[in-house]
């Protein structure tokens, strides 16, 4: 039982960066833009967050800085795609490559620097509830923020007028334009939001998860986040599920090894990726369902006709 609780705690931390990045990308994609640069935005958030906490000592300032960094680099993508009409797929890839390279460059001076990590924020009273107290109420601040963002994004997308407009833009940008909404502005905001969320997801890695700086420390999580959005059929609640599922498999395979299970470690390490493919296939095979949930204008460039 103890092992299970401990494992769940670890899974929550493993899922958190994925959750942030996937939520951000969900909003971006719902507005009709496919941003493949999540990995690049995450890692920029990671390095800027780390540099900031190193120089200012304040985790809160570092988190804000990482959001700004993610949004800033996302804005490059936004300008290229929305103003310069560049194709979204290669531009997103360029963002990833650029982000990885730039972060490595900035991070040269941060290699080998120690940081103790964000402190845990135990919610007084609730944290001492046996079993679930530790799991639910004794996490670091960013974990709480990630859950909060799930609620915020859900409310925004499904209950707010602004979210409705954003979805309209994603489903049919020509119709939205005809109704007088600025497609470009709305998409740009969505892209910035996606960048900010990816940035804080990356910062979670360097500030809390393994408080170090290492080149490429996102290790493909940005791509997993992209998969999670499709996996979740663009539904907010499912993103939460997917992030914890993926994080779970990643951690559980290590536990299986520690328990002495005889399957080769390489095969165990494959499980998260194979699971992602399987679920992707399962979800995608229902063409109608996908069509219902995916923004119809996803990836299609918007040409304002005058």
């Amino acid at each position, binding site marked *: 039982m*103890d*092992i299970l609780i*401990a*494992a769940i705690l*670890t899974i929550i931390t*493993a899922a958190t960066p994925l959750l942030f990045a996937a939520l951000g990308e969900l909003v971006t994609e719902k507005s009709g833009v496919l941003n493949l640069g999540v990995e690049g935005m995450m890692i920029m958030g990671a390095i800027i967050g780390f540099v900031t906490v190193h120089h200012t000592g304040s985790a809160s300032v570092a988190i804000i800085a990482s959001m700004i960094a993610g949004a800033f680099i996302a804005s490059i993508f936004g300008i290229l795609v929305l103003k310069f009409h560049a194709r979204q797929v290669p531009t997103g890839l360029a963002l990833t490559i650029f982000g990885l390279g730039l972060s490595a460059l900035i991070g*040269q001076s941060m*290699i*080998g620097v*120690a940081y*103790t*990590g964000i402190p845990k924020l135990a919610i007084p009273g609730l944290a001492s509830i046996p079993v679930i107290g530790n799991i639910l109420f004794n996490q670091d601040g960013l974990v709480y923020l990630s859950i909060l963002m799930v609620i915020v994004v859900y409310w925004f997308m499904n209950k707010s007028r602004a979210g409705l407009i954003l979805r309209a833009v994603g489903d049919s940008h020509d119709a939205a334009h005809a109704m007088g909404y600025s497609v470009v502005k709305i998409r740009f905001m969505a892209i910035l939001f996606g960048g900010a969320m990816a940035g804080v997801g990356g910062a979670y*890695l360097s500030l809390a*998860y*393994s*408080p*170090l700086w*290492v*080149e490429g*420390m996102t*290790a493909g999580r940005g791509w997993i986040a992209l998969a999670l959005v499709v996996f979740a059929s663009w539904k907010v609640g499912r993103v939460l599920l997917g992030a914890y599922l993926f994080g779970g498999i*990643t*951690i559980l395979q*290590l*536990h299986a*090894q*520690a*328990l*002495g*299970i*005889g399957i*080769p*470690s*390489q095969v165990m*390490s494959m499980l998260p990726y194979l699971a992602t493919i399987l679920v992707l296939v399962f979800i995608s095979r229902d063409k109608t369902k996908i069509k219902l949930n995916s923004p119809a204008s996803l990836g299609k460039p918007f040409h304002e006709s005058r």
Partner: protein
Amino acid sequence: MIKKIISSVAIATCLTAAGIASAETKVGFVYVGPIGDHGWSYQHNQSRLALEKALDVKTSYVESVPEGADAQRVIRQLAADGNEVIFTTSFGYMNPTLKVAKRFPKVKFEHATGYKRSKNLSTYSARFYEGRAVLGAIAGKMTKTNTIGYIASFPIPEVIRGINAMTLAARKVNPDVKVKVVWVNTWFDPGKEGDAAKALIDQGADVITQHTDSPAPLQVAEKRGVYGFGQASNMKSFAPKAQLTAIVNNWDKYYIDRVKAAQDGSWASIDTWAGIKDGMVTLAPYGDAVPQDVRDYADSVKASIVDGSFHPFQGPIKNQKGEVVTKEGETIGDGELAKMGWYVEGVDGKIPK
């Protein structure tokens, strides 16, 4: 008159030649990771700096060189640039180094942790397992849950030797100790290494150790309030309370000796496998958590390795099935150690095949 000209030309030539000969020796280093990894490559670089201080040399290095087709080009470039001695510090550089050594017979190559040599290619490695034995002694005495967590990279002989040496030493003082191993399939990935540490700690390990390069496992140990050991370099700054000690690689003397030999012409192709006695494997100062009696015991283990009265792989040794593979009074020889591919009793799990 002509004789005078000839002799002065001769003298001038000799002086010039002497001048060239006393010019700085160029030495090149190829690292597989970033020097900031605070582990394997970091320590090699520290020794490079020590070399620069000790001798009249000009060193250069290339970091994060991937093992594979690119390595050969980098090594060759160092050779073509006039480096007289080149250190390639990862076993995956073995064949590329060999190929370049063939083309540059006048350059002296030193390959770490490999097994192929040629007239101008030496190999060197450290008996890290001796350090692991000391770690095992400490861990065996300090664990309360009798579970040691081992974060391992790849199932190569060196890593397996380390696991075995630690297990044997720990069980010598504490026969109930179990060692749980998680293979992360990377030398350097803080996220994964940390995850593995968490999984091991979740499963009851209260002392962890690693054969990977980042301080992430120790950071986890620090956060969780368990103990751990630093790897390849002193990682105390990352885990002031958790680190009991660390194995610190020290290549200083070896690098200085080899370059000196190249300079004075006595260099020859050798195979070096040195340990604590020769100062290649050192241990960081004990952490505050290590009580005096454990320190004394660890020191005695160290001393007995140095004076030869104790070998980390001396019998009796049982394998995982419980069979005695090495009898009392015998020792596993270097040849067997070099290709070790099996676990001793006390290690949980199977080696990935």
